[in-house]
């Protein structure tokens, strides 16, 4: 057994006479020292780090790791019971049911057709939302990077929706978009006809994407703005002297140097888009039909709102979604490292 030498404790010294607050603090900390100093002697300085991270580790373990492990266990069990001990082991049945499909492009042929509808809906949402988000966030960041009047005000305006609760955003837009909503009132006032924005499947999908971009764009705009401001001004001056016009300055200076930031934005928005739920749910409830039902809503419906409360099936879908998110996260890390290395 290795004996750890007692750590030499260096007392706090100062040339100045300690003030009242400092003396109070010293008195207060004295009992703590009584615990910490012997503990440090026993554990050694290096191992004390574990002691300090222990509270956070406990919280992380109880509220993140334990539920993850339970979810993984649930995905191999069946029945409606909530207590793990009361749930019978069903092996990979839940995964088979989830993934068994005659034709993945035609959900009707799948055992869990709603899951596959949700997968396709999520795929479409991710593609259009992330593409739209990046284009709009980039354009906005470029505009806000210019010396325009009221720049600070506009930055706040674009960031403001990020501060709103997703459910509040969903409800506000629902009032705007429903048949007797504000938008239709405007259309009718201009002589147009009422539109079924939340009843037609394609319109519903479109608006879920638009609302999502509106609500989140400010966050990504801010990241891109920081990226734009980190590009040295001298490069633009050099390009200007070389005769590059605005488009070429963007193409050959801004875009390549913004790529590392752009990658971060792409991966972050991808991960967030795959998790789409609350805002869309508040806006459309997943309808019409299942047109705006996404994977997380499928998990929620299956585990919580279906009468049979198929927690095992919902947990299996969570594991599949977790796998997809893990791939995206690893891709982000690898891309990030590669970009850093290239830099």
């Amino acid at each position, binding site marked *: 057994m290795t004996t750890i030498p007692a750590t030499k404790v260096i007392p706090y010294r100062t040339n100045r006479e300690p003030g009242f607050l400092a003396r109070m603090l010293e008195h207060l900390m004295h009992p703590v020292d009584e615990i910490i100093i012997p503990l440090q002697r026993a554990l050694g300085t290096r191992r004390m780090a574990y002691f300090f991270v222990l509270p956070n580790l406990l919280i992380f373990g109880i509220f993140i790791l334990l539920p993850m492990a339970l979810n993984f266990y649930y995905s191999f069990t*069946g*029945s*409606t*019971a*909530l*207590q793990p001990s*009361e*749930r*019978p082991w*069903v092996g990979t049945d839940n995964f088979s*049911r989830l993934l068994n499909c005659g034709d993945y492009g035609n959900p*009707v042929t799948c055992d869990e*057709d709603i899951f596959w*509808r949700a997968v396709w809906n999520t795929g479409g949402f991710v593609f259009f939302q992330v593409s739209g988000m990046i284009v709009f966030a980039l354009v906005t960041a470029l505009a806000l990077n210019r010396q325009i009047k009221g720049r600070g005000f506009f930055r706040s305006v674009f960031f403001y929706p990020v501060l709103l609760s997703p459910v509040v955003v969903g409800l506000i837009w629902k009032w705007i978009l*429903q*048949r007797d909503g504000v938008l239709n009132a405007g259309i009718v006032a201009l002589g147009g006809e009422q539109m*079924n924005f*939340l*009843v037609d*499947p394609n319109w*519903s999908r479109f608006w879920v994407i638009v609302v999502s971009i509106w609500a989140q764009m400010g966050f990504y705009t801010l990241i891109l703005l920081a990226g734009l401001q980190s590009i040295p001004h001298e490069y633009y001056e050099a390009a200007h002297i070389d005769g590059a016009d605005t488009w070429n300055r963007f193409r050959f200076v801004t875009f390549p140097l913004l790529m590392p930031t752009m990658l971060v934005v792409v991966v972050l928005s991808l991960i967030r888009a795959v998790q789409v739920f609350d805002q869309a749910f508040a806006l*459309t*409830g*997943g*309808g*019409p*039909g*299942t*047109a705006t039902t996404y994977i997380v809503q499928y998990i929620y419906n299956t585990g*919580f*709102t*279906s*009468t*049979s*409360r*198929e927690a*095992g*099936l919902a947990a299996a879908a969570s594991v599949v979604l977790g796998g997809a998110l893990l791939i995206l996260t690893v891709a982000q890390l690898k891309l990030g490292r590669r970009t850093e290395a290239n830099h």
Partner: protein
Amino acid sequence: MHRRLLFVVLATLLASLLAVSAAAAQDPITLRITWYNDGTEGEALRAALDGFEAANPGITVSIEDIGYADPNIYHSTIQSQVEAGSPPDLARVNNVSLFIGNYLDLSTLSANPEYWLESFSPSVLDSLRSGPEDSGVYGFPLQFTITAPFINRTLFEQAQVAVPSDSNDAVTWDEWTAAAQQVAEATGTPWAIAYEPRGQRFWGFSISEGGQWFNEEGNFTVDTPGFRTAAEKLVSWTQNGLSDPQIWANLADGPRIAREQFIAGQVVFLYSGSFAVGGLAAGIGETFDWSAVPNPSGPGGSTGSPGGSLLVGFQGTQHPEAVAALMDYLVQEDVLGQFSIASSFLPGHLGLAEAGLDYTANAEILQALSAEIPKINEQAYKLQYSQFAFTYNRPIDGRLAQVIAGELSLDDAIAAIQKDVDDAIANVNAG
């Protein structure tokens, strides 16, 4: 010396214990009722509870209204509390099979358990029991509900179209559809029919059209000509512009939208139920004349779907005697009668149902709905009081919404409903 010290310590402990007990005895008891409102019954219950509190100083009762946008979310909120060991003292429930085994048995706590057995339908009391050997008393029906149509009579008058049921006891769905369409067109009303998107509302319709929900072996089955006919009609209303597609686009909001449209005079014919009378009456006021009409007829007769919510106590309560006292108070004929009148509810109490209630409001409508009760088809009772009642009705509205949205054909929807129900029952039985 030691003995004296021991005596002092024991005396102090005893005194402290007595003081704590006395304080505990004086502590007011607060009972918690988990609740949802369809209409004005929350206010009616509050009035009844005020009477109980006045008669039982030291006991206060709070109503926690957690909303009912989705029946499964409502019940799973209670279920998580029950499984966590901290259930509400009492709750209003309608998916009663979910909590069997967790209800507080009032047969030993009630001051008059015989009264309970005489006052409520044995089938309703049975629905709370765990099996034939269980003779406990666990709760009582707050109301008896039946699904039925309501019409805007003022619109019929304005359109100068005769109300079909005024001259004919057996009006078919097609006749009602034609009449409602005629009225809507004549009066410029946006919608002819609003049908609340709930599977349970669809049982009566499909049975009337000849639907058979159980096969010869007694198993749940969907694919019958009656179901198809009813489903085709329902889908055609939306596709032909007679019904607002908004009602079926967002299922959680559907019943609210349908009722709001009826209240706003935007729809001629609403299919809802007795549970909506209070809310509709409060919203409509004197704006127009409306009434409940008999359930439409078809080859399977004329039937609505029965139902009703129950008030139950939970075993996990800290105050079982207080819960029993409250339940005994609420089931008294005068208290329950007043509650039913104020809520515009059909009573689930046998004595009150037989004697009839002097409703001060909506009397004609409630009488018309009462007349629907004897016509309820046996299948509808079997569906409602089955252990799998919610399992059966849940996929119906979701899958029909997919047909209306153009995602599924009716054939695919029928196959999907059957599979959803079979899978759900297999999952329940796996435990």
